């Protein structure tokens, strides 16, 4: 049961359709024998999946070995991937409210359903990863299950093939009458000129070229698997880092994931736009239509490295490594890291100044400037005037209890509680000051803090990226392309010329481009008595080639 012995003496694995050595049809399925032209797919070799189906392992193996299953896995993955694009994924939505509420609020019941089904985080959900993994497994097993028998069949093929094999080739013809030895030699010579490898056995010829084209799909699959391994490695800690770093102008910050080794100072952030006056006047009309068009986003930065071991939080001793300008697609690179320009925030409030003013007379008594990231507690003014900052809310809002609170430490909407001391009011007057809003909670004041200007700073948003998997992914892509080229630009062609008594049989097979093969046979047989073989497929039948 395990093995099948062909008439020619070759022992084939169970499930073989065409004898590996001579090509005789082994399986006596009527479907196969009824066809005028045999299916040459995988050389009629025994695909392992079709033969054993006993243990659990075999069942799993056979499931993944099916191309049908593989195609379905791909279709399901495609559909799943497209589902994830209907609404924005979780990582792209603003963090203003809980995720579930956001989806419901923005997209109604559909958003709710989308969230409940877990589609808000689709691409890292377990089932999506399992689908991708199943495609990977299917790829490995499908390939193994086909490449091994195919290799065996092509390796073991003999020059002399069984009559039934030749007769059922798509290109096949018989020449009756004597064929001279010179003609034979001429044909061989012409085959050699066409770079065929020629094997001879007892006056019969097998000319073959481009066999390596048959490995193309498998090389291609190896590339895909390397690609998948590369993307898998991104989950390994330390292989892939993608972090955001916000640095204000003038600020020096530790670069995340560098173990406190590197610091970055933002010297200046620039957003340049195209200008009608100074830039090429050809852009004039376009700029009128589009308004402001960005020309350059640039952060001028200084990279520092810490000297010696410092404890976190301690003032580190910094050594300048380099100063550089980061532009879009022109990152600052150090060690395995790269800093990319990805975001910015113009004119973040930095300092605010106020004038202590007498409300009735309008007389002013000096101004105070508050650093919004690090305000002082007390601001002394001349002549016994002073201002105390009682409370400070950098990102002010009214809380649920009606008291002022802050949403974050970023000075997006600063609010202050001032206590103003003056010779007339030595115990102080309390005033709550927010943008465009002043509240005097303890009755009418004599003095007020009059707004007197702001200073702003730009903030740059950089991506800290480290990717040790990129070359693996690139390498996988290269192998993939090599496989595609190998399979696409070369054809595997074979021509059999066999003597059967007085007759000369010619048969030929190629995995693609039958027209080219026919042309080549014409040239090879030119000037000899051997007749050109016929194409047994009907003219109107589509040239399907062989799918691996």
């Amino acid at each position, binding site marked *: 049961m395990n093995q099948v012995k062909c008439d020619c003496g070759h022992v084939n694995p169970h499930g073989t359709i065409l004898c590996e050595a001579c090509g005789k049809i082994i399986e006596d399925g009527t479907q196969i024998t009824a066809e005028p032209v045999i299916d040459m797919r995988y050389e009629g070799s025994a695909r392992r999946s079709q033969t054993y189906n006993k243990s659990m392992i075999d069942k799993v193996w056979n499931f993944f070995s099916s191309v049908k299953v593989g195609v379905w896995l791909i279709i399901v993955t495609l559909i799943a991937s497209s589902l994830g694009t209907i609404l924005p994924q979780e990582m792209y939505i603003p963090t203003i409210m809980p995720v579930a509420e956001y989806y419901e609020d923005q997209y109604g019941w559909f958003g709710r359903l989308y969230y409940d089904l877990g589609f808000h985080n689709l691409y890292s959900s377990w089932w999506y990863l399992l689908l991708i993994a199943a495609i990977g497994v299917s790829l490995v097993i499908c390939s193994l299950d086909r490449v091994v028998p195919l290799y065996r069949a092509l390796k073991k093929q003999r020059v002399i093939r069984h009559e039934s094999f030749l007769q059922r080739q798509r290109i096949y013809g018989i020449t009756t009458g004597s064929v001279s030895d010179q003609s034979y030699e001429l044909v061989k010579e012409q085959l050699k000129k066409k770079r065929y490898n020629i094997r001879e056995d007892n006056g019969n010829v097998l000319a073959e070229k481009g066999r390596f084209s048959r490995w193309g799909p498998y090389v291609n699959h190896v590339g895909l698997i390397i690609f998948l391994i590369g993307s898998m490695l991104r*989950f390994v800690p330390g292989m892939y880092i993608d972090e955001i770093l916000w640095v204000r102008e003038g600020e020096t910050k530790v670069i995340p994931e560098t173990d406190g080794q590197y610091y970055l100072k933002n010297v200046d952030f620039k957003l340049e736009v195209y200008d009608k006056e100074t830039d090429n006047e050809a852009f004039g009309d376009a700029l009128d239509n589009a308004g402001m068009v960005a020309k350059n986003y640039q952060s001028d930065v200084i990279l520092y490295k810490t000297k010696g071991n410092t404890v976190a939080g301690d003032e580190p001793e910094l050594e300048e490594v380099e100063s550089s300008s980061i532009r879009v697609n022109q990152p600052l690179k150090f060690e395995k890291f790269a800093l990319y320009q990805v975001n910015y925030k113009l004119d973040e409030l930095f300092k605010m100044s106020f004038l202590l003013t007498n409300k009735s007379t309008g007389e002013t008594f000096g101004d105070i400037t508050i650093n919004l990231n690090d305000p002082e507690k007390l601001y002394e003014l001349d002549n016994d005037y002073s201002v105390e900052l009682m409370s400070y809310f950098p990102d002010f809002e009214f809380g649920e209890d009606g008291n002022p609170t802050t949403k974050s430490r970023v000075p997006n909407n600063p609010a202050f509680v001032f206590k103003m001391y003056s010779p007339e009011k030595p115990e102080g007057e309390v005033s709550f000051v927010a943008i465009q809003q002043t509240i005097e909670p303890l009755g009418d004041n004599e003095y007020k803090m009059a707004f007197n200007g702001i200073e702003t700073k730009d903030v740059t948003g950089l991506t800290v990226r480290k990717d040790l998997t990129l070359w693996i992914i690139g390498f996988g892509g290269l192998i993939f392309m090599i496989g595609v080229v190998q399979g696409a630009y070369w054809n595997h062609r074979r021509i059999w010329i066999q003597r059967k008594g007085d007759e000369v049989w010619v048969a030929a097979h190629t995995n693609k481009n039958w027209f080219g093969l026919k042309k080549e046979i014409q040239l090879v047989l030119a000037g000899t008595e051997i007749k050109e073989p016929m194409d047994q497929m009907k003219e109107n039948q589509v040239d399907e080639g062989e799918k691996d």
Partner: protein
Amino acid sequence: MKKQRLLIRTVILLLLGAAVAYTLYANFTKDEVQKVEVGKKAPDFVLTDLKGEKHQLSDYEGEGVLLNFWATWCKPCEKEMPFLNNQYQAYKDQGVHVIAVNVGESNVAVSDFSKRYDLQFPIVTDKDSQVMTAYGVDPLPITFLIDKQGNVVEIHTGQIVAEADVTEMMEKIKP
């Protein structure tokens, strides 16, 4: 022959299965990867409190430290502060310290908050987020329990809901 084939298939399937299992595992733990692990030494740091005093973690060796990261705008932080304050007073003579690390707000905002709740324990400010980075702090609040050897005993993410929980924590790191 047949046995060999079964063996080869089993090995290949096991390898593929292991790769898939690892990928899934790594994917689901990637958000939970803490810079600081239970049972390991807590990263040393030095920060200045509102009074201008420096606090270095390694100076507290031999005593327990409850390390709490917080911000004034963080409501859960606000709720757990009184518990920490009460238990700090109960345990400070038993060799357990509380250090509250603010995420780098202005001194005005922090001292205002501290006064409002009459907080007794030292509050240090992590101006450049260095300590937060070293401890991998993301959602607030988060509380690290550090024993007398300087090792992390427990990491509590999120609000401490009851004062009894704080008592339990204090007991764990009491020298």
